[in-house]
């Protein structure tokens, strides 16, 4: 049994994630974690360009985005996605966690940052935090499963 209470949208549907990383291993690892949190995988991408196409196609609730990738890096992909979808919720996931990188991503519209190797409990808290701002998720804000809402 999972030690994490499921993160659900307010309509009680699973949160849908787009996982972007050029490493298959990193994607699998992240996917394993978000599934542990009760999430659903809307799509996967191995570079920034594919991430934009997948975002357009799947309209996920959350994007988990690597920074260093071939063809188009994560920060540029964030900028392009946010330019088109200002409500997009993107969390950067990278092993390179120095301040300039984080600031650049946040300035382009990312909501948060988590450093690799990702600790499940850290990612969980970050997702809770990012999802708690339900104003951006029209009609489908988020709550923990079993949480009472009036």
């Amino acid at each position, binding site marked *: 049994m999972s030690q994490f209470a499921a993160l659900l949208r307010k309509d009680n549907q699973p949160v849908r994630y787009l996982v972007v990383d050029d*490493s*298959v291993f990193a994607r699998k*690892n992240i996917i394993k974690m978000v599934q542990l949190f009760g999430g659903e995988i809307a799509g996967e991408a191995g570079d920034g360009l594919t991430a934009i196409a997948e975002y357009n196609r799947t309209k996920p609730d959350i994007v988990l985005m690597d920074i260093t990738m071939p063809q188009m890096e994560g920060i540029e992909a964030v900028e392009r996605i946010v330019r088109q979808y200002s409500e997009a919720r993107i969390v950067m996931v990278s*092993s390179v966690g120095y301040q300039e990188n984080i600031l650049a991503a946040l300035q382009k519209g990312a909501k948060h940052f988590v450093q*690799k*190797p990702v*600790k499940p409990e850290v990612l969980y808290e970050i997702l809770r935090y990012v999802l708690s701002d339900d104003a951006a998720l029209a009609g489908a804000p988020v709550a923990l499963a079993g949480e009472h809402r009036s």
Partner: protein
Amino acid sequence: MRMDLIQPFINAADAVFAESLQGPTKIGDLLMEEGAYHRKGVAALIVIKGDIEGRVILDLAPDVALKVAAILTGGEVTDSEQVVRETVCELANMVIGNSVTLLNDQGYRFKVFPPEIHMNDQGLAGSRDTEAMVLAIETTCGNIYLNIAMHHLARRRRERDSVPVSS
């Protein structure tokens, strides 16, 4: 060889292995080596250029890489060259990313080149002045070897040396 440039890589590797492989690690003896590096398994070579310059080699046996892959993916993996390559590459990226973060926060600016994976029988050539720190980190999957050669760029070193020391 400056230990202050080497230490971030060792610390990062130890932390990354302990966290990602979900088990204890132990840093083995540190040795100095010169010349070409002879791989023990599959090696990722990462080159760094900027305020500090050098290279880091992360090296592990294929069977160790497969055990690592199984932990990273949370399931069984197929025994293939591709899996081994990707595993070594992913570990190298995590170690370098975390090291770069530590060094960048100390004020160093440099470019990190993507890992080159070496699987063939040739050694990895060192330059005439390559003096490297070599160590093994014991993990639950087996030993992972690091070979680190890093120095200040001469210009930067001269600038640093010319700064007067206040008493």
